[in-house]
């Protein structure tokens, strides 16, 4: 649904996006992560046909970026970084204006559908300027969806929202996935990306990593088993280290952290070795690295190498 090949954008001497190549499948939620100024918004603007790439190619919803931009904009929805609503106009008038520009056949029906879905119907005639941040964001999301686009670009959809509003927006995004839409999500909220995204790309002018959150964790940190013991003794760690499939053993807060391949197959052997060494096991589980750990590792490593 989205395909980029060496997509590059320069602003004078500044390289904003450097040879970005990736594909996003239909119905996928793709998380595009990166620090401020990494070039995420520039990438979205290129993919939305708003600014031209300096070089490289991209296709979105079957339209070639830079060549079929009008058709492209008809097939995509864009939630920009700021809601960008006409404060003096009512919620209904805001949506009706955009529905007419997108050539929606039944403007009032489409506006009513989205206002009801988002719980704004009762306040449809109130000026958007009187709405809370969360309501404004919901209205902006509705605006991006009015014409039923195949691909939706969401730039920081939950930025600045309270937990309840953010939760509502996330549910909304999950609902869009159920409808089969492709979502390109830019966010700084790594927990949100972890929960929603099928795959993520960590980006800083160039793509640093690309995979599912779980796969990235495995690639970067391996799989670590946490063993809670009644009491720690040096012999237990030693017993674990002697096993050929164990890569690393750490003693942290009275627990053993054992990094190994294929815990499903190897855990019984590890547990037997620890019991033989005299350990009293309380719990055994898998340590789940956060996406934040993955992200920080990637960005910091790139920063050091730069």
């Amino acid at each position, binding site marked *: 649904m989205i395909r980029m090949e060496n997509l590059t954008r320069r602003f004078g001497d500044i390289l904003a996006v450097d040879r970005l190549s990736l594909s996003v499948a239909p119905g996928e939620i793709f998380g595009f992560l990166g620090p401020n100024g990494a070039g995420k918004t520039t990438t979205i603007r290129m993919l939305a046909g708003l600014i031209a790439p300096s070089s490289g190619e991209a296709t979105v919803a079957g339209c070639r970026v830079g060549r079929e931009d009008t058709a492209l904009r008809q097939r995509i929805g*864009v939630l920009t970084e700021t809601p960008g609503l006409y404060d003096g106009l009512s919620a209904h008038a805001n949506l009706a204006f955009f529905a007419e*520009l997108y050539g929606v056949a039944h403007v009032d029906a489409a506006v009513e559908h989205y206002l009801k879905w988002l719980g704004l119907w009762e306040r449809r005639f109130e000026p958007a300027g009187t709405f809370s941040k969360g309501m404004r964001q919901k209205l*902006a999301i509705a605006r991006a969806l009015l014409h039923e686009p195949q691909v939706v670009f969401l730039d920081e959809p939950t930025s600045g929202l309270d937990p309840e509003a953010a939760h509502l927006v996330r549910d909304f995004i999950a609902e869009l996935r159920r409808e089969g839409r492709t979502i390109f999500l830019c966010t700084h909220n790594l927990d949100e990306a972890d929960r929603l995204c099928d795959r993520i790309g960590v980006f800083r002018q160039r793509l640093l990593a690309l995979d599912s959150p779980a796969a990235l964790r495995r690639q970067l940190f391996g799989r670590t088993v946490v063993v809670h013991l009644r009491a720690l003794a040096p012999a237990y760690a030693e017993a674990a280290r002697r096993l050929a499939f164990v890569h690393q053993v750490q003693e942290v807060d009275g627990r053993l952290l054992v990094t190994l391949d294929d815990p499903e197959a190897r855990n019984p052997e590890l547990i037997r070795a620890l019991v033989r060494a005299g350990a009293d096991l309380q719990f055994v589980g898998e340590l789940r690295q956060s996406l934040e750990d993955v992200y920080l590792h990637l960005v910091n490593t790139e920063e050091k190498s730069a």
Partner: protein
Amino acid sequence: MKAVWVIVRKEWREVFRNRMVIFTVAFLPIIMTGLPLAVLAATRGGGEVGDLSAMDLPPGYEALCGGLTGTACAQYALVSQFMLLFMMIPLAIPVTIASYSIVGEKITRTLEPLLATPVSTLQLLAGKALAAVLPAVVATWGGFAVFALASRFVVVGPEVTARLADPMWLMAIFLVGPLLSVASVSAAVMVSSRSTDPRAAEQLAMVVIVPLLGLFFGQIAGLIFLNARLVAWMAAGLAVVDVGLLGFAVALFQRETILTRWR
């Protein structure tokens, strides 16, 4: 064309909530129409002005007045001074509307969602320009219509009123007026691209009035005498200027320029 009208309607709904815009659109035509009528009414009453003979008028007025008698000529000469004031309506109104419309969108960051729609930049610019030009043209023509009708009651004779339908006036109102509006909108787009305050943009773009004021004062000083030929030259010159200004405005109003260079 439908998209252009959708934009025009939205612009009017938004911009006419602003008191400054309403003030300019409503009061300027009232003042510019009322002022010459008041002056005409004041000079109608005879006395020294009424007793003027053609011999008492400066040489340039002879060409301006043609066959009019001294008193009628004096009134027509006065009315002609105000023609340039009428021209301020199509200049000032579009500047105000376009400045508030474009800078307003910059401030509230509504331009990017608008640019993300399938609307072409030309349609977008046309919508914004028409939203600014149409009220100006309607106000100018409406003001002139009121002036032409009301002048019947305050001029010394019907021959003066009849002169308001001569080629000079018709060209000025129906050709130069709209051309001035286009120049005015183009100037407002250019200034607005670099401004973050609608009032500052409006004041800067009002520079387009300066040449007109030059003409006005030149006319008052007796250096310039308006006639059909001069107005025709004005129209031709403005048409050329408009093409250039519109070219600049269109170049500035490209998606990429707006998103990456407008600050």
